[in-house]
């Protein structure tokens, strides 16, 4: 008797020209369709180069597309039927479009300018793909409104053009690539809920801003406003165009007693201008600029507390982790770019060069495999990994994949991760990560190794996910959890170094 031939997986790929949905909506659509009976895997995505790579790695044969096309790729189970799978796609797409509910006469607006004109809103929040963001943001400036641009991958000349117009009109452009802002208690993008208070933050770094806000909140000190300016604002080309306006605004606000500027090191000439400008203001400005030999964010928070006459508390920590390890390399898997940077700066001082996709110096760059026989730290939120794809704080797929790979690698000594809470982030990131952490530890144990996992969990008790509840979930999964990323990093270094 011969065994029946293995049924080849049946795939159905179709390109929908002129269809569009954002990456988060399509993530949910893909999940819903993949869960449909008769479908073994499904990916509905815009045809960006990154998404095409993912689709190819899933085994799909793809026709020619442009990035404006939507690709519906279905892998059918043996009993699967194309028609019912496509019906599921259409149902999920319809469900994702909450805006389709109005009457014919009240169609939703198509441009930011129109929305501002009709709603009387006084702030615009832009998260369309980067190459399109400038036009939407200009609508806001034309309407005399401030704008926050979450979008990354915006061409530099667009940023400069926008900020020049804003400067001329006394308006504020937060971003591009501005992950976090808080205006009058309203969190924008990825934002934590902190108590109100006397500190104003100007941030060229989203997760750096979040870390600072959360540490201050844990110490009982509130933040009145956090104005993001985008990661390039203090670079030599943008030259602090938004930072100056943000500082001016905070200085003019009588409830702000102290301003903190958090950023990676600015270009030297921009730093000099920044210091001079800060000195001209009546509100004291504390510069928290990450860099080799500079204080880390936790030390910066402690200095701010000192200035305000408060002492730093014992920074919160939860759980513990295996102390022993057979590996040699530290693996950092981050969703926050600044947290990744901070960890690399701290670790480089102890362990030497850290290989990364956002390396501290060019010779440390990782190739597209994102792996090396060395200490590595990956920022999954970097532009190149988010083109046409949701941010890892929303879509954990890529990081979970790398967590499993790191766990299976016998050279891994310790895994360091961040979990960032707040509005915009997953509703329960610890819930999604905990089983993966437990599985990673068990994978290592099955291979006769101990695998310590250290997590920096950035959040507050008032966040929708609640800091202590998330931290406990991660601790119960076997991780050691710290509110301070610097503390977490130092623990991970100690655990890595313990075997040497």
């Amino acid at each position, binding site marked *: 008797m011969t065994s029946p031939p293995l049924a080849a997986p049946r795939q159905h790929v179709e390109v929908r020209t002129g269809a*569009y949905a954002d*990456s*988060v*909506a399509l993530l949910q659509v893909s999940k819903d369709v993949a869960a449909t009976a008769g479908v073994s895997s499904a990916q509905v995505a815009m045809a960006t180069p990154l998404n095409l790579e993912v689709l190819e790695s899933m085994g799909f044969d793809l026709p020619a597309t442009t990035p*404006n096309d939507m690709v519906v790729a279905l892998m059918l189970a043996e009993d699967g039927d194309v028609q019912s799978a496509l019906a599921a796609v259409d149902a999920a797409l319809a469900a994702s479009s*909450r*805006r389709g509910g109005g*009457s014919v*006469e*009240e*169609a*939703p*607006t*198509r*441009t*930011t*300018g*129109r*929305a501002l*004109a009709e*709603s*009387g*809103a*006084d*702030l*615009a*929040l832009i*998260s*369309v793909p980067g*190459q*399109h963001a*400038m*036009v*939407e943001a200009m609508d806001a400036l*034309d*309407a*005399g409104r401030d704008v926050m641009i*979450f*979008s990354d991958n915006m061409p530099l000349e*667009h940023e400069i*053009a926008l900020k020049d*117009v804003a400067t001329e009109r006394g*308006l504020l452009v937060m971003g591009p690539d501005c992950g976090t802002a808080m*205006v*009058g*208690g*309203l*969190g*924008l*993008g990825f934002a934590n809920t902190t108590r109100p208070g006397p500190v*104003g933050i100007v941030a060229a770094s989203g997760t750096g801003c979040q870390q600072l806000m959360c540490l201050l909140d844990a110490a009982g000190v509130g933040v*009145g*406003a956090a104005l993001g300016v985008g990661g390039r604002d203090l670079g030599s080309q943008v030259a602090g165009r938004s930072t100056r306006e*943000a500082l001016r*605004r905070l200085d*003019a*606000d009588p*409830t702000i007693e102290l301003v903190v500027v958090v950023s990676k090191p600015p270009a030297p000439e921009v730093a000099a201008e920044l210091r001079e400008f800060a000195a001209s203001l009546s509100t004291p400005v504390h510069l928290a600029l990450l860099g080799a030999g500079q204080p880390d964010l936790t030390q910066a928070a402690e200095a701010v507390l000192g200035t305000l006459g408060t002492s730093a508390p014992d920074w919160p920590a939860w759980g513990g982790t295996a102390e022993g390890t057979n590996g040699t390399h530290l693996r950092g898997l981050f969703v926050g770019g600044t947290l990744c940077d901070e960890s690399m700066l701290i670790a480089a001082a102890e362990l030497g060069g850290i290989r990364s996709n956002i390396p501290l110096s060019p010779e440390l760059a990782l190739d597209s495999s994102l792996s090396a026989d060395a200490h590595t730290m990956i920022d999954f939120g970097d532009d190149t990994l988010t083109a046409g794809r949701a941010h890892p704080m929303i879509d954990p797929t890529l990081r979970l994949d790398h967590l499993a790979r790191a766990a299976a690698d016998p050279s891994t000594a310790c895994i360091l991760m961040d979990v960032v809470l707040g*509005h*915009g982030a997953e509703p329960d990131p610890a819930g999604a990560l905990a089983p993966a952490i437990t599985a990673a530890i068990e994978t290592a144990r099955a291979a006769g190794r101990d695998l310590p996992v250290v997590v920096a969990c950035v959040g507050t008790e008032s966040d929708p996910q609640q800091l202590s509840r998330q931290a406990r979930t991660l601790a119960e999964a076997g991780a050691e959890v710290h509110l301070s990323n610097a503390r977490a990093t130092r623990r991970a270094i100690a655990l890595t170094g313990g075997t040497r």
Partner: protein
Amino acid sequence: MTARTTPARPTAAPEGVAASGVDLFADAVDLQAVPVSRVDWRPPMDGTTDDLAVVAADPLRRDANARAVQAMLDVQAVLVDVAPASEVLGLEAGQFLHAGPPIAWEAATGPLRGGLMAAAALEGLVDDPEDAVALFERGDAVSLEPCHHRSAVGPMAGVVSPSMWMFVLEDPASGRRTYCSLNEGLGKVLRYGAYGPEVLERLRWMSAVLGPLLARAVKATGPVDVTGILTQMLQMGDEAHNRNRAGTLMLLRDLAPALAESSADAKDVADTLRFIGGNDHFFLNLAMPACKLALDAARGIEGSTMVVAMARNGTEFGIQVAGTGDQWFTGPAQVADGLFLGGYGPEDANPDIGDSAITETAGIGGFSMATAPAIVRLVGGTVPDALATTRRMREITLAENPRWSIPVLEFAGAPTGIDVGLVCRTQILPQINTGMAGNRAGVGQVGAGLVTPPAEIFPKALAALARRTRERAAG
């Protein structure tokens, strides 16, 4: 839209947020109890992304568009004269104007050919309109030129020849003038491409009786405020493109006393009153040049992305833009979607033709469809469609015309001033109400309906604007 001069304190909560892009962030604002207006954003027309950014960053754009809109809104159109085209346009024997962008006889479709054949016979260049085909094919004794190039507009085929009488409209502030022929009525008429004996007979009567009588009446009455009539008719259920009933009667009200008091033959006066009163479209030929007069005020404003003309010649649809001089951006004219007369069907319809889309360019016609529920069926729509159309046109326009207010939309102004950039961004095309001509010369009107320009002409215009912006930036 109110521009803020003093920014709010950063510790003061925003009153509302407009969110474009990922829904999740709008949800987060919503959860924090701040009103959020969600934008149904989608990618722009293919190949326009870079040009849109260049034009958005053009330092001239905002001010240029504000000036273009203001110049258009400031124009008042008054009817000052009625006179032969030979006098007011300097048209000479053998010279013909036509609707839309420039075109040669070889490329002309049925209605334009039919209109030219009728006009050639009217001018006595041929005895039988059919003989005019050879005349135009030879081409040495005739010339074709767009109405737009002589400050005129022509409905449908838009053919103007020297002996036709023209309305003369003037902007009192600037003295600028625009022109349009007299409306012939519906059915078998020159502008729809018919050229039978009854067409020529009517045209001869119009030149011999109607034109001179109107000229006397206008002189006796004094300038007629066409802009004022437009304002009123929009509140009376006319969108001033496919429905001009209220406007026609108001014009008649203004001119009838002078006609009655003229020493003209009583039968001629009665025929004139009967002809105008019996032709619901008579006022269209005043609405069109009034719109052109306003839009021409915005021509030649460097950096402006506002459309100043949309016109079709039955083969191509063309637009002109304030910031690109007199350049035409053209693409193939579409066939309208709508209702057909008698036994005609879509196979009988010619592609879109006429300068009458100047009304939509100015914000009336299809753009003010919400004000004219009485004709929604004529153009194949429903009342909710009409409201939705006017609201949708706000997405692609720079302003609302405070003079043209629409009662059913809470007296909102008509969406006015099409922006090339907004069309490319939203992929929403201008909605045009139109008549349909038969595709064979001599047939006349076959229906009426809705049509849009070919999408590709907007990226073409945008590319030209972007090229100028880049050149200016490079010095």
